[in-house]
């Protein structure tokens, strides 16, 4: 499939073996190339790549704080425009699910509304992993985290995941997509499209986390594959308001094939697995029902 050989994030960083987030960043950067500036939120990626005086980044990179990458990117976007070099540079804002779904949600929404030009990548590992696996707005139903523990009375997180890509699409942006390291051709094609957008484009990246999800480090890609095969993480894009599946399994596998691979779900009862199955199915059916329709089209622009 002709993936570029060049690496823009060096090996030797301190990420866990099998880290889904670093793999995502590695491949996103291969697609965006040398002329890329990255704004990175506080989180695992920032910590493992930049222990002073070392850095794993071969491109210009800045980390400011947890909740402000969209705002910092807004300033860079306008600064580059003033210098007349905006078109030469791919500007990426990369934040985890805590940074994107929760604490930085306001700054993301503001930057989208203002019509800045950059690509926002939410590297979603479904909890605050850097601080020790605490529940976030992206943690899925019934997952066991350190602040939503599988207790005797309450079995993990009792709320479902925030539908961030759809919320972003409702702003009326030109490109939103989900990406997975289990499908690199799909990931590359989507990063390329996202970089062409004239306003904020948004990529929701599925990033399995070895210590957070509790699985052997060799299983990262397999789990990511299973997430798409079961409909837990469908691969789609919303281009100019029109939603299209980019991969559609002929038949969805039962969700338990995905859940049973991970320690964070090992406490689930049959009834809870059924609830998750219904929830996943409903959401998947919703996406199918709006496929090719103009539900996110110019109405919101």
């Amino acid at each position, binding site marked *: 499939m002709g993936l570029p050989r060049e690496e823009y994030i060096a090996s030797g960083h301190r990420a866990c073996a099998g880290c889904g987030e670093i793999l995502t960043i590695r491949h996103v950067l291969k697609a965006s190339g040398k002329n890329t500036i990255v704004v990175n939120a506080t989180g695992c990626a920032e910590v493992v790549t930049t222990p002073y005086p070392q850095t794993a980044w071969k491109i210009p990179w800045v980390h400011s*704080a947890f909740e402000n990458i969209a705002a910092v990117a807004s300033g860079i976007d306008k600064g580059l425009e003033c210098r007349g070099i905006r078109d030469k540079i791919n500007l990426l804002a990369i934040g985890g699910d805590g940074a994107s779904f929760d604490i930085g949600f306001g700054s993301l929404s503001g930057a989208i509304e203002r019509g800045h030009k950059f690509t926002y990548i939410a590297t979603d590992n479904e909890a605050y992993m850097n601080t020790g696996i605490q529940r976030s707005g992206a943690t899925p139903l019934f997952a066991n985290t350190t602040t939503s523990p599988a207790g005797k009375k309450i079995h993990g997180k009792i709320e479902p995941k925030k539908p961030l890509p759809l919320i972003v699409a409702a702003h009326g942006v030109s490109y939103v997509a989900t990406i997975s390291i289990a499908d690199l051709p799909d990931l590359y094609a989507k990063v390329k499209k996202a970089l062409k957008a004239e306003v904020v484009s948004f990529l929701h990246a599925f990033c399995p986390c070895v210590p957070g999800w509790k699985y052997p480090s060799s299983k990262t890609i397999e789990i990511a594959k299973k997430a798409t095969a079961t409909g837990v993480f469908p691969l789609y894009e919303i281009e100019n308001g029109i939603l299209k599946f980019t991969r559609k399994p002929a038949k969805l596998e039962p969700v338990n094939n995905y859940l049973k691979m991970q320690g964070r779900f090992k406490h689930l009862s049959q009834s809870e697995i059924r609830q998750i199955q219904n929830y996943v199915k409903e959401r998947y059916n919703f996406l199918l029902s709006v496929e090719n329709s103009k539900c996110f089209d110019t109405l919101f622009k």
Partner: protein
Amino acid sequence: MKRVIETSHAIALAVKLARVKVIPMYPITPQTHIVERLAEFINNGTLDAKMIHVESEHSAISALQGALLSNVRAFTATSSQGLALMFEILQIISGMRLPAVMVIANRALSAPINIWNDHSDAFAVRDQGWMQIFAETAEEALDSVLMAYKLAESKEVQIPIMVNIDGYSLSHVYEPVDIPSQTLVDSFLPKFKLEDYLDINNPKTFGPIGFPDSYMYFKEAQHKAMKNAEKRIKEINREFKKKFKRSYGNGLVEEYKIEDAETVFVCLGSICGTAREAVDQLRVKGKKAGLLKLRYIRPWPSKSIRKALNKAEKIAVFDRAFSFGSEAPLYTELKATLQDKQINSYVVGLGGRDVTIEHFKKAYRMCSKNKNGWLY
């Protein structure tokens, strides 16, 4: 060209003359007149800059950081709650050694909510590694913004700076201002060029994690740079005088009738005008009063203060902020600087309470009895 204009307008003109390129802004009273003027300049085509209408002050300061990192001169302004919301990013900018310039139209902090002037906002962020200057007049506000850019961007400094102007009592006041020409400002303020920025041809990492083995070096370097700034402030003040035919004391402090003064008032910002008048009236009655106006609180000009107050017998410090459970902040620092002097503390003008000539006269009387107080 001398014109009678509002201080906020004067500041907007300074920003324009400094050829600022990016202006992230979020409205808050009493700062808004500044950015309103800037928006007019941009939309009328007289200022070639981009305004970013951010959704919060937190994003305003973050976008300011982004703009600077892309290697352009930038500006923002805020007040009170807005500055409080920016708190987190202040030390990220100073720690990254970015030469940000921000105007604070000083306003009291909630609760109770109060939109009027005091210095509780500026003092709440005193230790975030930003230089802080206080202007007394509209003209000084304009000049201070120009000097602030030159200072912050100096190679031996590279520290951000807040230009404080008293909310309403200076921000909304109309005064005669000598507006310098663009040519003159261009000869004073060099073109913006950072040594380190986000450059695809020379990639660098900004904002790494500093473990315990490195963190302290960064912080000590910030302190040293801030101390270097003292010398640079004096140099810039002298250069400013040569070019613009006006200056402010030695740059760090300004003395008024201090030579033979027995009791010296020490204060910041717009109330210095009232203090001068009080000094004159006291002197008519044969009372030897004087004034030391502090222009900077960071860097803290201890040498200049010691020199200026060397002969003073009594010192009356006026604070417009307070450290609850302790004492007024300027008073604390002045005591640490002048340990062998009689120094008295007067807390005045919180939340926009008027500060009048009578307050200074009362403080003068109380000072003669070595008494402190809150003056209403």
